[in-house]
């Protein structure tokens, strides 16, 4: 009787949404448990670090890691899991591109710590103490891992075999990836699950997307109403579908809200934000600098919007702080 393949699921600096997407496999989760041996999954099983450490190198057939790398300890865990696993999948946008956690790269670590632990109006911290980043001592207690200088995506720390995009990925996509591996249908290394084309191609509003879009202005969603059936872009509402990988079943569009790019770019686009910038600029209906500036000034936060999910993986990585 052949042994069941071993699977592990772990989270770095994440939110638990990717775990929820696995739980949303619903009855398929029970099927997974029948077909595979889940050896490490802290959200659902009482598996400990020592159980993981006791496994041999390469003993785990498939490990899904979600969450970005924000603490040194998480980089350590990623490396440990890499050693113990034959295949590692970056599960979800944080692991794939850095995710929303990656917006932290627009600030420095001291700024991020100071805000929460010294400055917010409810905190009372007269000594100005900050948690973490020390080896244990008698005053500060057991050690607590410190923050890495920059948030990183998983493949900036370890070698990654496949990627499941999405924040979080739809359960069907997670299932697709897991069954593909369990059934030996391995894609080529570096494969990103999801569609091969942008979201527009499967969007229910594709018919109303014009060949040419020319806009005299952009509108912020809270200031305007729009037609629920038609493409957002000609209505002046920024939707990132044209620069974003499809495969999410347009769930945001179906709720009548524009895409925010969580699936990341296609393979051909190295920097998601730059790609978004290009297509948005191409829609501007103006020829003179003043007019162009006026139109684009209406976009309140290009860095935060265009790099919402991908700052760590972008060319400049989010900017502040030393480069890795």
């Amino acid at each position, binding site marked *: 009787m052949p042994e069941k393949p071993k699977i592990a699921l772990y989270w770095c*600096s994440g939110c638990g*949404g990717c775990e929820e997407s696995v*739980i949303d496999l*619903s009855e398929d989760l029970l099927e997974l448990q029948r077909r595979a041996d889940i050896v490490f999954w802290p959200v659902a099983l*009482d598996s400990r670090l020592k159980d993981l450490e006791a496994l041999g190198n390469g003993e785990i057939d498939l490990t899904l890691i979600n969450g970005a790398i924000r603490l040194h300890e998480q980089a350590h865990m990623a490396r440990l899991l890499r050693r113990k696993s034959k295949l590692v999948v970056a599960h979800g946008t944080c692991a794939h591109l850095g995710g929303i956690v990656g917006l932290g790269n627009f600030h420095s670590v001291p700024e991020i710590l100071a805000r929460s632990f010294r400055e917010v109006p*409810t905190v009372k911290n007269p000594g100005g103490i900050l948690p973490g980043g020390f080896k244990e001592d008698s005053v500060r207690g057991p050690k607590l891992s410190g923050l890495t200088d920059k948030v990183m995506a998983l493949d900036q720390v370890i070698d990654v075999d496949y990627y499941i995009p999405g924040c979080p990925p739809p359960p069907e996509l997670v299932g697709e990836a897991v069954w593909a591996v369990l059934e030996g249908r391995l894609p080529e290394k570096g494969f990103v699950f999801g569609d091969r084309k942008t979201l527009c191609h499967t969007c229910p509003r594709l018919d109303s997307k014009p060949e040419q879009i020319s806009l005299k202005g952009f509108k912020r*969603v809270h200031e305007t109403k729009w037609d629920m059936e038609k493409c957002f872009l000609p209505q002046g509402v920024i939707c990132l579908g044209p620069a974003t990988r499809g495969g999410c079943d347009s769930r945001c569009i179906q709720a009548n809200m524009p895409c925010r790019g969580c699936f990341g770019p296609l393979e051909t686009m190295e920097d998601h934000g730059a790609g978004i910038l290009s297509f948005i600029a191409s829609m501007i209906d103006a020829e003179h600098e003043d007019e162009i500036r006026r139109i684009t000034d209406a976009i309140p936060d290009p860095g935060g919007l265009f790099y919402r999910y991908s700052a760590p993986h972008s060319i400049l990585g989010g900017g502040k702080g030393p480069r890795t």
Partner: protein
Amino acid sequence: MTRRIIIDPITRLEGHGKIEIRLGSGGQVDRAFFQVPDFRGFEKFCEGRAAEEMPTLTQKICGVCPTAHHIASVKALDDLFDVEPTEAAKKIRELMHTAFIYEDHLLHFFYLGGPDILVGSDDKRFGKNIFGVIGKLGERIGEEVIEIRKRVRGLNALVSGSPLYPVCGLPGGVSKPVPEEERIGIKEIARDALAFARRCLKIFEEEVLESREYVDLTHLDAYSLETYYMGMVDGNNRVSFYDGEIRIVDPEGGEFEKFGAIDYLHHLEERVDTWSYMKTLYLKGVGWHGLREGKESGLYRVGPLARLNASEGLATPLAQQEYERMFDVCGGKPVHNTLVYHWARLIEVLYAAERMGEIAVDDQLTDPEIRNIPVQSPRKGVGICEAPRGTLIHHYETDEAAILKRLNLLVATQNNAGAISLSVLKAARAFIKEGRVSDLILNRIEMGYRAYDPCMACATH
């Protein structure tokens, strides 16, 4: 040399955690550290972001309770822009929020903390999980909980886009109306949700309340914590998830303070420990006096048991009956034993199902007017709601262009931080004698925090 017992990682909760217990020379527990080794910094990196993006940004604080953040955030935006949502929008938001709390509580009961009391104690470390629950209670119950959660989450998706990633919140409304033809499906889901909620309470009755083991545990001082309790209530002091004022009662159950969203700063304060990224909230009106119980300590609790303690009832009939029964069986109000959180949680599941049924037949639910466009200049906004795990506060300050200048977040489990630390310490002291540990003892200690259904991604943000 200090002997340490380390649980790493703690399991069956959302988020990262470690417990380090330090023993003295006689094998008694000296100290217990509850550490949360994760931190992302939303309170900083949301600065510079456009206000209208906040409901979808902040919901990434937690992928288990994104709906709660989405709701608190959109309410903060309503306040920020001083815009009243339409009646339909309020009903839609309350429907998705209530549906979410229903299924999230079930997640905890069947997948996370519930297995501790459903599977019963034995030394088998790998039996306490959803698979063990199914093994004990049967495949059918597994199928039912999976099915009802799928359908209720589908209901959330209908209005919000996805229960994993709700997107519909806008200041003054929501993005999409509920078409009248959907009402019949919503009513069916609410009806079936109610039936399952009653089934859960029956399971609790038969498998847990009738178990000597559980009842004995609920009488142990190991799990008892005399604290203040806090929760949102409606105008009649009954539990409210979506809107209302925050009510705090003291350990004897008398009303201590009551406040609206904008006044939260006068009532709550937080402190920092070096060995954890989770800050500890306490009542400003009492002050921080260390990890202690009692009226003189500023420690307080939130979440299901706390909400029931802090309120004077539930607004739906069946849940109200269960509320009265629970306090009757437990010998009065407030109830201090942490394990009773599991019971309170199921009573809230029942309330949520009844409330979903009420909203499902409300005329306003399908009204096409779902948005009021803001006209005021934004400045400051505070939004509060009850997340499944406790009171959730989003506070935003922006410039006139509605770009975030500053924000403050007080998130659910964080309100329980002090109680969690103290619960773990008490349980450790009660169960570890002469330095002896076993998997069973460690499980008993973990049960001390797991009953709160903690979410550490939320608590640290």
